[in-house]
């Protein structure tokens, strides 16, 4: 019986909502309970957890203040309130709270001694300090934090974290000399392989401005200042002095790795020469290469030495390691320091022209020549074992792969396999070459043969599973992956339980290619479910992290969870879900069930209604089924109760996604497109899908906004061109008049998109540009040609020449884009038969393994 005036009832009611993850309702119920019993600590605590989970930050702060007022003697409550103030964007307030907490302590408390908890708390306070900003004096907090670091020096146990904080502050404050010393202390602690420390060190050496310093600190992987933007000549010289291996010039034998460094020593080049001081560091040697200008002789000899070492050692990743050096300058349109920055060349067309790539090709060819004739490197007399030649072939084959020269790559990798048939790496590369070259079936067989050589190698097993799925051999793929999953039961279920996202994405892609849209949707949705679970998982940390005082990490966790929907795997799933729903919207599926109405002939409102009815029918049927079961079975079984609540496992439930397909496609597509543009706004594809959804919903302004966003990211994108043309046509055909203001915005902004031309003029000028630039991407060529044909601009020969004259030297040439081009050529008309053959010949020359073109 429910007593509306009992706080216990409301509390339990809230807990019930919480268990079904309906947090907003749970919060309401808790609040109601608190109205009856405002000082109930348990309810307040539960409420605060929900509030931080839902990011009701103000509410969280308020609740924690209440708790603190009720029980001011508990450390956890002080810290939680301080955190609440901090996440509300008031670092100064948070410091105040932390200080008051310290004020409550007695002298000699463990909080003042060296120890893990006191150390974490001190560093957290330090971080909060550094976030204080004042108008006109942005660095006031950083300055305070730097001073504070000295105060807490003896309390802190995380020495590396302490040094890193110090380094970051010193850089922001422009204290480069001190920052260099801090870097050295970090290197001596063993951070020589951390590229972020190197990035900071380089900034400090060349006295970078603050924005660059901040940017460099954010780089990942092997990124440093040298890979961020081109260096000036002076910068280059300073950095080379620091990183060049000058050990051979002086007697380096007495210098040990990380020998004590007297920070007050002079700044002679040898004193600070890293390569001599840390001779075992790989990062220092690698960074040195990025400092040199690719055209210099120095670069040539250094990369030569670097490659030789790695080849002798037999490092399979050498090829991809080197590919991080194919940097090209890109202007981002800004004026000033970051006008030009580096981007990585990834398209084979760009890679092929890159000076570093060309040097590597030359070098590797000379290695192969010399190693295969006399087992030595060029101009050297040391004899090397046969595996060195093997790895040189392997490297050359990877270079072929990077430049999309698949036939040559295969020739070399076959040599490797013949040379050492027991090497798993070679089968994997061969499969990759075959796949990119167009023969996915053979690729799957080859990688499977490689996998057979070592059944304990999980990596190759995963690669095999992936390739088999891409080849559409689902059953084989499941057998392979099952070797590393639990035996019993369906591997699909096991992998779902293990949240094996990559497998589910590949399986979903595979189903989609086979046209099993429902099943594919179900798989994509299970990835979405995993991400919801990851988001849910933070719940456990709200209480735990504060109790353990890992506040710095906790703040990072909160930030990570906020950004989780922007991660690539989630984006992949969400994009495909949108695409499938758009496809359903455009081509309603013919239902197999006779009693299901034909949705395609209805208006969208009618359709919604009909589907709702159908769904309800189904649900009630299911319910009665379950009830029927329950009656017949022993009611003491607890699992039945679970099933009644609808907690059956999502994989078994509706495996073919019939329920998902029956949902309203517009609503679903809209939902996921909105998530994508919110959390992955830097991806063109997010905005392209947002456009596709908006235009179908007749939301012209939103569609236009999406176009503008794409233009901002990449004005040359084929996705932009196709959609701009589409928008223009849709705009002309919609008779409905919107609000006059929005009409005006649309017409002015859209003419900006068309560069103030008519649509014909826009297509015409695109035609001219694409024709004049040999590197123009194939997808863009196809889109421009399509637009020309449909808008009757120029002759169809003009349009086709755009594609055929490219000779496949431009960007974006893959088997798929070639197939699309072929479809277009076919669609132009019967006259194009000859051109079609010509195109096929071009494509088969580039992708020798393509079948069924």
């Amino acid at each position: 019986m429910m007593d509306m005036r009992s706080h216990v009832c409301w509390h339990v009611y809230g807990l019930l909502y919480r268990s079904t993850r309906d947090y907003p309702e749970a919060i309401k119920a808790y609040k109601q309970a608190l109205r009856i019993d405002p000082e109930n600590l348990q309810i307040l605590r539960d409420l605060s957890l929900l509030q931080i989970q839902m990011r009701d930050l103000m509410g969280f702060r308020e609740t924690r203040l209440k708790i603190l007022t009720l029980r001011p003697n508990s450390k956890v409550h002080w810290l939680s309130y301080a955190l609440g103030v901090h996440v509300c964007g008031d670092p100064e307030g948070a410091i105040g709270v932390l200080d008051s907490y310290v004020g409550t302590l007695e002298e000699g408390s463990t909080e003042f001694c060296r120890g893990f908890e006191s150390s974490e708390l001190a560093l957290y306070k330090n971080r909060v300090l550094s976030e204080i900003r004042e108008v006109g004096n942005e660095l006031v907090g950083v300055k305070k934090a730097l001073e504070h670091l000295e105060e807490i020096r003896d309390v802190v146990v995380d020495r590396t974290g302490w040094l890193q904080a110090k380094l970051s502050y010193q850089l922001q404050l422009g204290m480069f000399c001190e920052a260099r010393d801090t870097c050295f202390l970090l290197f001596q602690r063993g951070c020589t392989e951390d590229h972020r420390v190197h990035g900071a060190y380089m900034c400090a050496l060349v006295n970078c401005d603050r924005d660059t310093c901040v940017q460099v600190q954010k780089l990942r992987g092997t990124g440093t200042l040298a890979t961020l933007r081109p260096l000036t000549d002076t910068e280059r010289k300073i950095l080379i002095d620091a990183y060049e291996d000058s050990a051979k010039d002086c007697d380096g034998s007495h210098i040990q790795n990380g020998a004590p460094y007297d920070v007050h020593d002079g700044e002679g080049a040898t004193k600070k020469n890293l390569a001599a001081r840390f001779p075992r560091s790989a990062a220092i040697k690698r960074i040195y290469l990025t400092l040199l200008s690719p055209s210099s002789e120095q670069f040539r000899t250094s990369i030569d030495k670097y490659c030789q070492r790695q080849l002798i050692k037999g490092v399979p990743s050498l090829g991809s390691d080197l590919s991080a050096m194919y940097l090209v300058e890109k202007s981002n349109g800004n004026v000033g320091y970051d006008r030009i920055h580096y981007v990585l060349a990834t398209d084979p067309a760009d890679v092929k022209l890159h000076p570093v790539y060309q040097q590597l090709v030359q070098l590797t060819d000379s290695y192969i020549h010399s190693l295969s004739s006399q087992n030595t490197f060029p101009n050297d007399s040391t004899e090397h074992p046969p595996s060195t030649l093997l790895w040189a072939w392997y490297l050359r084959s990877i270079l072929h792969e990077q430049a999309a020269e698949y036939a040559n790559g295969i020739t070399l990798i076959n040599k490797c396999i013949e040379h050492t048939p027991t090497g798993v790496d070679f089968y994997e590369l061969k499969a990759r070459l075959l796949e990119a070259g167009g023969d996915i079936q053979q690729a799957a067989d080859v990688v499977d043969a490689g996998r057979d050589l070592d059944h304990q190698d999980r990596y190759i097993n995963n690669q095999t599973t992936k390739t088999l799925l891409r080849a559409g051999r689902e059953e084989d793929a499941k057998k392979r992956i099952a070797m590393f999953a639990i035996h019993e039961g369906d591997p699909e279920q096991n992998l779902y339980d293990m949240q094996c996202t990559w497998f589910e994405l590949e399986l979903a892609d595979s189903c989609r290619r086979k046209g099993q849209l429902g099943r594919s949707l179900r798989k994509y949705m299970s990835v979405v479910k995993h991400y919801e679970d990851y988001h849910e998982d933070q719940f456990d940390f709200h209480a735990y992290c504060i109790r353990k005082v890992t506040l710095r990490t906790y703040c990072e966790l909160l930030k990570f969870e906020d950004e989780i929907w922007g991660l690539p795997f989630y984006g992949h799933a969400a994009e495909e879900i949108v695409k499938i729903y758009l496809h359903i919207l455009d081509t309603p599926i013919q239902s197999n069930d006779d009693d299901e109405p034909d949705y395609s002939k209805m208006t969208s409102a009618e359709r919604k209604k009909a589907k709702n009815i159908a769904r309800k029918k189904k649900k009630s049927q299911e319910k009665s089924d379950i009830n029927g079961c329950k009656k017949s079975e022993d009611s003491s079984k607890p699992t039945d109760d679970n099933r009644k609540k609808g907690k059956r496992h999502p994989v078994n439930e509706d495996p073919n996604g019939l329920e998902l397909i029956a949902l309203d496609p517009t609503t679903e597509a809209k939902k996921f497109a909105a998530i994508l543009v919110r959390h992955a706004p830097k991806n063109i594809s997010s905005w392209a899908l947002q456009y596709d959804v908006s235009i179908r919903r007749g939301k012209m302004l939103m569609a236009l906004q999406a176009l503008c966003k794409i233009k901002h990211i990449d004005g040359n994108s084929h996705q932009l061109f196709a959609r701009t043309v589409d928008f223009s046509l849709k705009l002309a055909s919609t008779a409905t008049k919107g609000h006059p203001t929005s009409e005006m915005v649309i017409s002015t902004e859209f003419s900006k998109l068309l560069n103030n031309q008519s649509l014909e003029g826009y297509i015409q000028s695109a035609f001219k540009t694409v024709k004049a630039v040999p590197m123009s991407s194939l997808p863009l060529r196809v889109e421009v040609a399509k637009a020309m044909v449909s808008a009757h601009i120029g002759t169809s020969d003009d349009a086709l020449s755009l594609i055929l004259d490219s000779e496949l030297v431009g960007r974006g040439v893959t088997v798929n884009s070639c197939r699309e081009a072929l479809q277009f050529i076919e669609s132009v008309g019967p006259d194009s038969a000859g051109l079609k053959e010509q195109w096929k010949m071009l494509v088969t020359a580039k992708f020798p393994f393509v079948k069924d073109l």
Partner: protein
Amino acid sequence: MIKSKKTLPVEFGIINADNVEQAIFYLAFHIQLLWQQLKKINQACLPIAYAPSFYQELVSKNPKDGASMELRQNLSKFAYWNGFAVGAICSKVEAIKDCPGRSRIYIMTLATLAPYRNRGIGSALLDSLISYYESHATDTALSTVDEIMLHVQTSNEDAIKFYEQFGFEREEFVEGYYKRIDPPDCFVLRKKLR
């Protein structure tokens, strides 16, 4: 005679019996593990193709001759270079038919991938077999062993020279020992151990 090249340092690996046991535990439908690599080496080096039963017996959990795992690991092993298996020796202890109660070590295969030859890999493998026998000659499994024996195709002069360096002697000529290769005849090479 090919000029001998620089000797490669070789690590020895067992033909992975431990892993096979693990495999039974983890990977239910394939018990064979690295025998595929052994097969690759043999295919690349030897003129005859061995039947699957040959490999199955080699990695089987319950071999017909009842040899212990330790013994089998020492009778058959890979040679690794730079992470790759480049050579392998497979041998077993078998009874001598004419002398009841006595037995011998019979070398079934010994092979090194072509690019890695003349670098001491085969010698290292054979050495390790002989030295294992020498240090374990009194163990029950090896106490009845009198000799090491193998068959070699009459045309394979390099191999005969190789074994002679280790004190093997060329003995009886067996006509038509091989069925599918030419010449089909072989010699028996034998090294007396006691």
